[in-house]
C-alpha cells in the first residue's frame, strides 16, 4: 500500500520547550492510523506540526512525495489535508450552515454530494442548520467539526481526540461515522479512548515523550497487554 504521509525524524518546539524529539511514521492510503500515548506525549503537537500550525525544527514531513514541513497551514490544507482539532474549533457565533460555508472551498456537484452525504450521516446538523455553533451540544459540535473537514475532497483527515468529553452513546455515533468515512478518505486519528481506537484503527503508532516508540497492526496491540500497560496505562 502507498504511503500518503511520511514523517521522518521530526523535531518541534513550542516556544522554548522541546516537545517532539524524534517522530517517524508513515500513513498508508485508505487506512485509519491511530496515534496513541499518554497525556502530554506529543500527539496533538504532531498533528498541529503536520498541519503547519507548529514549525518543524528538524526532519521532513512528506505528503504525496512533497516535503510540506514548515509550509503555511492554508497551503497544506489546500493540498488535501483536513483538520478536526481537539477543541473542535467551531465558530461559535456562526450558524451550522455558515460554519459549513466557510469550510467549503468551492460549491460544485461534488461538494454538494459530499454535503448531502455528511448531513445524512449527521442528521442533527441538518436539524440545527440555522442554530449558532456555540449553542450545539458537545457531540453536535464534534459532528460539525468532522463534517467541516470532510465536506472538501480531502485525501487525509487529521482527527484529534473525537471522543473527548462525549457521552458513550455519542462516542458510538462518532465511531460509526469515522468508520463510514474510512472508505472514502485516509485518517490519522489521535485517541485516548482505546476501545474506540481499536475498533476503527488499522495500524497504531505509540508516542512517548515526543518520540515514536512502537508501531504495528492494531490487531496485534489488542493482545499485547504488556505494551498497553507500559505506554498507555491500560491494564
Amino acid at each position: 500500500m502507498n504511503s500518503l504521509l511520511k514523517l521522518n525524524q521530526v523535531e518541534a518546539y513550542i516556544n522554548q520547550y522541546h516537545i517532539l524529539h524524534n517522530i517517524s511514521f508513515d500513513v498508508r492510503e485508505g487506512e485509519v492510523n491511530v496515534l496513541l500515548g499518554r497525556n502530554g506525549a506529543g500527539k496533538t503537537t504532531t498533528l498541529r506540526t503536520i498541519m503547519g500550525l507548529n514549525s518543524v525544527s528538524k526532519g521532513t514531513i512528506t505528503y504525496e512525495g512533497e516535503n510540506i514541513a514548515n509550509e503555511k497551514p492554508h497551503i497544506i490544507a489546500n493540498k488535501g489535508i483536513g483538520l478536526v482539532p481537539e477543541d473542535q474549533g467551531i465558530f461559535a457565533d456562526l450558524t451550522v450552515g455558515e460554519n459549513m460555508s466557510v469550510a467549503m472551498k468551492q460549491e460544485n456537484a461534488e461538494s454538494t454530494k459530499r454535503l448531502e452525504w455528511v448531513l445524512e450521516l449527521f442528521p442533527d446538523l441538518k436539524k440545527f442548520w440555522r442554530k449558532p455553533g456555540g449553542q450545539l451540544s458537545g457531540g453536535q459540535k464534534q459532528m460539525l467539526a468532522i463534517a467541516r473537514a470532510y465536506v472538501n475532497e480531502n485525501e487525509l483527515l487529521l482527527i484529534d481526540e473525537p471522543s473527548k468529553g462525549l457521552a458513550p452513546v455519542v462516542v458510538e455515533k462518532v465511531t460509526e461515522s469515522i468508520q463510514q468515512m474510512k472508505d472514502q478518505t485516509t485518517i490519522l486519528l489521535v485517541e485516548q479512548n482505546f476501545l474506540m481506537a481499536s475498533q476503527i484503527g488499522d495500524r497504531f503508532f505509540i508516542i512517548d515523550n515526543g518520540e515514536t516508540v512502537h508501531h504495528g497492526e492494531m490487531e496485534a496491540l489488542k493482545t499485547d497487554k504488556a505494551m498497553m500497560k507500559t505506554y498507555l496505562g491500560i491494564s
Partner: protein
Amino acid sequence: MDLLFVLLINGLATGMLIFLLAAGLTLIFGLMDVLNFAHGGLFIWGAYSGVWMYHVTNSFTVGIAAAIVTGLVIGLVTEKVIIRPVYGNHIQQILITLGFMLVLQELIKVVFGPSQKAVAPPAFLEGSFMVGDIVLIKYRLFIILIGLVVFFVFAYIFKQTRIGLIVRAGVMNKEMVQSLGINIKLVFMVVFMVGAALAALSGILHAPYSGVIYAEMGLEFSILAFIVVIIGGMGSFKGSLVAALLVGCMQAFMAYYVPSLSLATNMLLMVIVLVFRPQGLFPVKG
C-alpha cells in the same frame, strides 16, 4: 421637545462619524489582534486628501472617493510595513503605531501646511429644512444616511457573503480558518485596508461637519473610537454602531446641558461597562 430632537440628530451624526472610525478599529483588533493607534492618522489623511480634491474639483463626491483611495493606499502600506513585523506583540504595536500616528500627523503639516483649513459643505447639502417646528440640518442627515448605508452594506457582506463569513470566523478562531485552507494574511491585509478606508471616509465626512480641519484632530477622535470599541465589544461591528450612537448622543446632550462634563461622561460610561460587562455590550464569542 424640539430641542431634544435637534440634540438627538446632532448626537446621531456625531455617533455615525465615530462609528465609521471605530468600525475599522474593531475589525482590525478583533481579527488581527492589533492595537492600531495610527488609526487616527488615517482619519486625518482622509480628511485632508478628500478636502484637497474637493476644493480642486469642486466635487464633494470626488473628494469622498479620493479620501477612500487614500485610506486604502495608506492602509496597505501601514499593514505591510508597520504592522506585519509586530504581529502578536501588543507593546511593540502600541509603540510603533503611536509613533506612526505622529509621523502621519506631522506629514499632514508638511504636505498641506500647518494651519487649519476651513471646509464648507457642498452646495446641495448646505442649509436646513423644517419638519413642523423642527429644524433639520441637511449635512447632519447626510452623515446619518451614509453611516446607515455603510452599516447595512457591511452587515449584508458579513451575513450573506463567504468573505464576510471568513472575516467573522477569523475574529473567532484564526488558526481554524487557516486550517480550512484560507490565506488569513491576505484576509488581514484586506480588512486592514477596508478599516483604513472607513477611517478616511469618516475624516472627509467630518470636515464639513466641524467646518475646520487640523492635524491634531485624528488623535482626539481616535480616543472616542477606542472608547466605542471597548464599550461595544472588541471585534463587534454591531457593538461599534450601538456604542458609537450612545457616545455620540451622550456627547451631544452633555455638551448642551453640562458642557464641562462632556468627555468625562464618555469615560465614565466606558468605566461602568468595564466594571459590569468587561467583554463589552456585544462580545464576540471565541
